[in-house]
């Protein structure tokens, strides 16, 4: 809550500063862009925390994988999206988009492989063990 408030004040302060500097050549990214970057990074950190809490708290391998493979992918993809917003549509921004696509393709694949390995190793599901 306080974080959202401080972000709002950051946008307001930056807007007034930007109005003062409108005559000069823009050195660096605009304040609105920086605010969007900060908000996306905060969202990504939130999802990383959710994935970690699920990894620590859930009872068996399959539940933990369910928690981490989705939430953590979304968190890292949000951070990559922040990189796209910050570094523009070409160059490193394009690399960020490639990173998002790569994460969305590989994370489910890896989770599926590990869960199949767990099934072959006869790891019991929660509530199934004697």
């Amino acid at each position: 809550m306080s974080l959202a408030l401080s972000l709002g004040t950051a946008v307001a302060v930056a807007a007034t500063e930007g109005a003062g500097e409108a005559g000069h050549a823009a050195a660096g990214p605009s304040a609105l862009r920086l605010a969007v970057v900060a908000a996306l990074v905060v969202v990504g950190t939130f999802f990383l925390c959710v994935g970690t809490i699920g990894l620590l708290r859930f009872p068996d391998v399959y539940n933990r994988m369910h928690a981490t493979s989705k939430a953590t992918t979304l968190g890292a993809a949000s951070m990559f999206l922040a990189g796209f917003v910050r570094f523009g549509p070409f160059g490193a921004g394009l690399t960020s988009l490639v990173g998002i696509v790569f994460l969305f393709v590989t994370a489910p694949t890896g989770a599926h492989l590990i869960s199949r390995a767990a099934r072959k190793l006869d790891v019991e599901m929660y509530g199934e063990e004697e």
Partner: protein
Amino acid sequence: MNAPELYHLVLVACGAIAALCALACTYRVVVGPTVPDRAVALDTISTCVVGIVVVHALEADRSFFVLVAVMLAIVGFVTTVVAAKYLTEGAIIE
């Protein structure tokens, strides 16, 4: 506090929280009752590190580190696949 300072503060705080998440995942690596648990925890740590590197690229304003993050994601995926294959078959290359 003006806007650029707040921006850097938010980015540094988010990077620190992501690093704490990666540190918390090591609990599951050390304690985890089964071997697939450890593999899942290592995969989560690699994803957390990718996020930390992207945050560092934003905070230091060096776009080069985005490429480093993509490379780390590739290495993490290969690690996960190799770990799963080793767990199922006992050999990586027959």
